[in-house]
């Protein structure tokens, strides 16, 4: 029994990750070639692709997708690298870690709205400097939605940098940081150069899947693109969503072909990145072999901390502006603050928030709970077999994050329509969220799980306790903190899901996030403020509540405190 459960957990986990992706891709591919009996497509043909090729502006949209995705990844990784290289092993790093960790729980859409409210022509930053320059009307510049996608890149960078930063920090204990630092310094290398020469290659090997996930995400993102990206023409993914939600169901064939193109676009982005990787490796080697020491890197180090501080500041300031807008009465340009505050926006929004909120909570709790049970089963299996997950298993885990959501979730939607499973919509929603929640829950819990001193369990077993009893009374209570953190992270990931919710729910169910993003095209900042803030508050409340549990449980246990 105790051996059987974990084994089936591994099979179940792999199935729940791989099957939706496989079937989803199939469900996208077949209609792309004209086959979808439910919508009257019985014969294979290239017509959808011909229609796609005839769509104006598509090459621009595709290039825009790749370019913004790669730029956002390159900038985020660059900031992370220089900052970690400069400050790994110093108190500065751990201080910034405390600033950046909460950013992970802020949904992409909320961060993007906050940024928009900050930098728009009538945004807070311009109001700040307006008196200095005598500006009394919002300047006529196209921000956000600038045609180059620069605002969108910024919006991605403020979310992906914290992600890459935390992933890198998690990998950092695996390298000999202080020894390498001393060695590099004694040979006269600059801090950054020493770190890059000695540690970065092995560190990068451990975080590369996360980097690929950022590329895939950034090149196919929808919500951030709708809020900040160019709209005429938009990125490929935003065009696809229009087609996917078109009331004329025959447009779904075109949408399928477009989703295949998106898969190609993201793959092209990844291939381009592989070339960059090789190039960087060659340059790194050449520089190392010449013995370039880059001793004077102090300026770069200072800049990196400034940029990281700016990123954290931008997100938090954005959230604050959202809060102010949600409470604002009359707020004219260029006033720095509203003339009055009112609860009217909240009052008028609240009656309509109930259903989306319930859907958000139910989907979040259910998918996260399933994810944690499966994760514990898999990790328990690891202990039984004495083998930890291979690179292949790790890739499997990252697969839902590397294959663009829009390409396989759309296929799942078509399968869902085809099977007429409308009454199980909520179940379908939970299972689709699970695909994206599971990797984060697993990655968050795996390290603390493996780090627990095995001798505690040896002692408990030798005292005559069964494996199940040891799990329940020793391991799980000792790991209560990381387990709750994983739960909170999983919940935040579920709350932030836009596209899967939109596609699977088909407008019959909505969450706080789909409601918030739907407001992007309108320009009611007060309502946007309410929804975007709610979207942030829900996961933060989960974090806060879950953080209280261990303190209450282990009130009198000193070693159980952090």
């Amino acid at each position, binding site marked *: 029994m105790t051996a059987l459960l974990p084994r089936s957990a591994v099979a179940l986990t792999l199935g729940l990750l791989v099957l939706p992706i496989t079937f989803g891709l199939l469900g996208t591919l077949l209609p792309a070639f004209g086959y979808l009996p439910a919508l009257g497509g019985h014969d294979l043909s290239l017509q959808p692709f011909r229609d796609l090729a005839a769509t104006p502006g598509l090459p621009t949209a595709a290039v825009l997708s790749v370019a913004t995705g790669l730029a956002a990844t390159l900038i985020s990784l660059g900031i992370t690298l220089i900052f970690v290289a400069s400050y790994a092993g110093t108190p500065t790093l751990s201080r910034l870690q405390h600033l950046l960790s909460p950013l992970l729980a802020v949904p992409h859409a909320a961060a993007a709205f906050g940024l928009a409210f900050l930098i728009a022509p009538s945004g807070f930053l311009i109001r700040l400097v307006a008196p200095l320059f005598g500006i009394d009307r919002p300047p006529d510049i196209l921000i956000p939605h600038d045609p180059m996608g620069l605002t969108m890149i910024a919006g991605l960078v403020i979310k992906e940098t914290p992600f890459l930063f935390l992933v890198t920090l998690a990998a950092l204990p695996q390298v000999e940081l202080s020894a390498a630092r001393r060695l590099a310094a004694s040979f006269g290398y600059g801090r950054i150069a020493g770190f890059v020469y000695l540690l970065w290659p092995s560190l990068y090997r451990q975080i590369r899947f996360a980097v690929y996930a950022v590329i895939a995400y950034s090149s196919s993102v929808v919500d951030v693109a709708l809020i900040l990206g160019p709209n005429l023409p938009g990125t490929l993914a935003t065009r696809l969503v229009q087609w996917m939600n078109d009331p004329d169901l025959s447009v779904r064939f075109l949408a399928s072909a477009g989703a295949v193109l998106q898969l190609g676009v993201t793959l092209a982005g990844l291939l381009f990145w592989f070339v960059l990787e090789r190039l960087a490796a060659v340059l790194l080697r050449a520089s190392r072999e010449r013995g370039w020491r880059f001793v004077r890197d102090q300026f770069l180090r200072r800049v990196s901390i400034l940029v990281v501080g700016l990123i954290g500041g931008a997100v938090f300031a954005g959230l604050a502006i959202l809060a102010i807008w949600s409470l604002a009465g009359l707020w004219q340009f260029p006033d720095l603050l509203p003339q009055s505050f009112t609860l009217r926006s909240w009052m008028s929004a609240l009656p309509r928030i109930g259903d989306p909120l319930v859907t958000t909570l139910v989907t979040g709790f259910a998918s996260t709970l399933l994810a944690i049970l499966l994760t514990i089963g898999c990790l328990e299996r690891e202990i039984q077999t*004495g083998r930890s997950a291979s690179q292949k298993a790790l890739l499997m885990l990252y697969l839902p994050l590397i294959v663009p959501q829009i390409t396989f979730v759309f296929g799942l939607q078509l399968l869902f329509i085809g099977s007429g499973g409308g009454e199980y919509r909520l179940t379908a929603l939970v299972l689709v969220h699970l695909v994206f929640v599971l990797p984060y829950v697993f990655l968050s819990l795996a390290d603390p799980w493996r780090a627990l*001193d095995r*001798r*505690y369990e*040896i*002692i*408990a*077993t*030798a*005292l*005559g*306790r*069964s*494996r199940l009893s040891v799990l329940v*009374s*020793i391991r799980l*209570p*000792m790991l*209560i903190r990381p387990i709750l953190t994983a739960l909170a992270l999983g919940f935040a990931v579920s709350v932030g899901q836009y596209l899967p919710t939109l596609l699977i729910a088909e407008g019959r169910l909505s969450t706080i996030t789909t409601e918030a993003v739907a407001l992007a095209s309108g320009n009611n900042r007060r309502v946007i403020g309410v929804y975007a803030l709610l979207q942030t508050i829900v996961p933060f409340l989960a974090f806060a509540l879950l953080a209280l549990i261990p303190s209450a*449980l*282990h009130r*009198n*246990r*000193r*070693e*159980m405190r952090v």
Partner: protein
Amino acid sequence: MMLQRQPTNGLSLSNVLIRMGDVSLIALTAEVPPGSVFTVMGPSGSGKSTLLSFIGGFLDPVFDAKGKVSVDGVDLLSLEPQARRAGILFQDPLLFPHMSVGANVAFAIPADVRDRRRRRQIAADILADMNLADFADRDPATLSGGQKGRVALARVLVSRPRLLLLDEPFSKLDMELRAQMRTLVFERARTAGLPVILVTHDDADAEAAGGPVHRIGMNGASHD
């Protein structure tokens, strides 16, 4: 050879051989009568702790092991690790940090003692016996090193072990405490009639144990 060997009292190790790849770490045949201590000595990295893992049922699969191990005629290796009741003390006391001192001890009391009050009483009795009366509700983190060591000993004793496996349990204690703990552990094992295997690299441990000493070397050569 024609006759089945009569069950003997105490621990019997026959033709135990532990290897990693082609390197033999331990080759050993020994009888350890109840209450006496059998010491295995070797430098760190010699693989001496693998003997304890093998007997307890926790040997890492990278090692190959064979041989027979029985206690009072019971073949240990045929039992699941949790059924072997091989009490272990490590270098660190490893008290469960989320449980009170009393709960740590009560956790070890065999399941056939069902009555909760009875379990609490057993834990309180042995704690009192270890000069730790009134410690039951304490947080283990607030105890001194010596006190933690005594709780760990109390915990292993109430589990009614068949034998004791000691993995350098004194090496992290300071001189004075080390002598006290040694005396206490060996004395308790003697009183309870438990065969003991002590793994150490400290000659003073071996001397205090008083029993036979089996030395293994860095190169894996095993000799008495």
